[in-house]
């Protein structure tokens, strides 16, 4: 019943959004903070320069241990992308854009009017919950150091951070490094596979889409503090989605370009492949033909 209600609401909103044809509309965005942003950019640059100066003193050309030889240009994936379901994907991309414009973005706009500390609390809460999946997957990836770090973050933030509402760990320089089942599959050598635009969620690949579902299933099975089933699940999952949307600046079709789908696909798959290179346990053979589309 509840599901039917949600679907009906969704359909009505999409219909209403599709019909909104007013000539002039104004949407208030969060105020920009140029002075603070620029100060942050200066700090970042100075930190980098300090690191470089420090690094220069003990400069060594010995290749860092354990990461294998650098990639060569021949090993780069081709410019084309493996997208056998392109027509469906394009349809889903358009659907997601309309859904975003009609429902998700307006809700996120309203959500952003809540006091910032409250929203930071929500964000920290979900971010803390995600550590569970990270710990499990780092274990499956046989990566002890980041696994212990995530476990540490989870323990610190769940206790000192009052159930994850405060991110005490980052203040203690234990920063977050999320991972999931998609990364685990990549580490053990699986290619991303076909490009796959997931309804409501957006660009992904078959492997990472499956990884996302597996992470969701893991959380559901563990059902930590009974947050993932029953009423709590119905409230928290959409809240998490709205919170993520409210913190992302991406706008569908802000490029105005007829090639936005191509651009997003290109960048998303290249990003995935670059992250895969850093994850992979063994160096890729480099035997793939230059014409093999990226991801296959």
């Amino acid at each position, binding site marked *: 019943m509840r599901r039917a209600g949600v679907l009906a609401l969704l359909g009505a909103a999409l219909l209403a959004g599709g019909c909104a*044809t007013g000539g*002039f*509309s*104004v*949407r*208030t*965005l*969060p*105020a*920009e*903070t*140029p*002075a*603070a942003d*620029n100060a942050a*950019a*200066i700090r*970042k*640059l100075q930190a*980098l320069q300090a*690191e*470089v100066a420090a*690094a*220069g003193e003990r*400069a*060594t*050309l010995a290749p860092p241990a354990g*990461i294998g030889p*650098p*990639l060569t*240009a*021949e090993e*780069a*994936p*081709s*410019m*084309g992308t493996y997208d056998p379901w*392109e*027509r469906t994907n*394009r349809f889903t991309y*358009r659907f997601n*854009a309309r859904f975003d414009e009609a429902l998700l973005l307006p809700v996120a706009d309203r959500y952003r009017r809540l006091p910032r500390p409250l929203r930071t609390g929500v964000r920290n809460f979900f971010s803390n919950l995600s550590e569970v999946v990270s710990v499990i997957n780092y274990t499956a990836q046989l990566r002890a150091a*980041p696994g212990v770090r995530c476990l540490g973050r989870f323990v610190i933030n769940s206790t000192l951070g009052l159930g994850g509402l405060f991110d005490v760990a980052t203040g203690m320089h234990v920063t977050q*490094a*999320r991972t999931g089942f998609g990364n685990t599959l990549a580490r053990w050598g699986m290619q991303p596979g076909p490009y796959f635009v997931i309804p409501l969620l957006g660009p992904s690949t078959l492997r990472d889409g499956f990884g996302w579902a597996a992470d969701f299933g893991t959380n559901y099975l563990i059902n930590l503090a009974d947050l993932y089933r029953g009423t709590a699940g119905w409230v928290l999952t959409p809240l998490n989605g709205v919170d993520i949307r409210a913190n992302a600046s991406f706008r569908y*079709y*802000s*490029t*105005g*370009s*007829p*090639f936005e*789908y*191509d651009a997003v696909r290109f960048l998303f798959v290249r*990003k995935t*492949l*670059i*992250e895969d*290179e*850093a994850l992979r346990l063994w160096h890729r053979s480099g035997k793939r033909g230059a014409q093999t589309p990226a991801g296959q």
Partner: protein
Amino acid sequence: MNRFRWLSAVWALTHLLAVQAAEDPPAGLPDSAALHATVYGTPPQDIAPLPATVPLQEIDIALPWARPLPAVLWFDRRLRAWFSVQDKPAPLAIVIAGTGSDGNTARLATLRATLYGAGYHVLTMPSPTFPGFVASASTTGVAGDLMQDSRDLYDATRAILAHLRAKVRITDVDVLGYSLGGANAAVLKSIDAREHALNIHRAVMINPPVSLFASMGRLDQLFARSIGTSPADIDHFYRRLFVRVANYFRASEQVRLEDTNLYAAAAAVLHTDADFAGVIALDFRLSLMSIFYEGDLYAGTGVFSDPRHPPHPGDPTAPVVQELLRKTFAEYFDRVFVPYYLAHRPGATRESLFADSRLDIIGECLREDPDYFAQTNSDDLILDAAELDWLRATLAGRIAVYEHGGHLGNLGDRQQVADMLQMLAGTWTGATP
């Protein structure tokens, strides 16, 4: 600790490569410093003082004169602009983006912040060459004609101001723009001098082209010299940058690409002058791709889209994209722009169309009216010496020419902003040495 080790290795490697690169004589490329400034922009510590907060609104407007929307551009029905309002009566600064850009680029954000801090309401507008503008606000669909594009921009701005004036107290109106937007700004003021619909007071052009088509030709040349012209050349450029990003990222020990420090990444990825030039040229080429494709679609010239079978949003576009990556502005001019305008503008010739892309078309206004100003750099990539001389001679004492900065590489720095604000206030007395 570990991070230092990775960084030191990356840095040492970068320096080694940079030394090798320095021995590689660049063939026909602009000055190295100009290329670097153009890519990196103003360093954050050199940026003019900025206000703590700037309110921002996104404005969507449907314009009645827009041409029928092709199915593949279904999302471009309404024009989008951005507005920052003061809480008291104030002058309005209208700021226009450069080639192919929307009304909310990082450069516009910098200008918006400095202008808002100086007490202006700020309206930032997309370039008339932005694909969303072409679809929602252009009367032709074929971008590139300086006067016609500016005319469309003028009418769009007017439609937006009609709504804003009802809610906001505007005491004066000035117009600015960077790159092609600078030329648009000046033409906007010249149109307004006849029609008085906006009542524009002063215009400031920041790094404007003098001849639009000559500047675009220069960027095509930069592409050919830094990347090449064949599909294999483009593939090679892509592979080179891909493996550098991948190797840099592998050494950085980050889990997600977006967590890496962009400055460090750029230093690790761009080594030679050809790399820097390639990135600049590619940025322009990506803008040109949409202009070319849309122009062809609207003009019905059949280069990419068969006018009898309009493309569908579900159609794969990868082959078109591959082809467009190699297309130059010259080809757009010959195959879309000229055929369209010869058919729609009585008496026009190929030569007259080329000549109409020069700022000369408002030369008299620029010479006679003391309210036009310009800021540019002596090493701007889009100008040659003769064009810079023309700007100097035409604007006489109303142009600031900085020694370094390449194309827009000093936008937002203290000197540029101080001069710009004085120009807008009418108190500018000349470039400080």
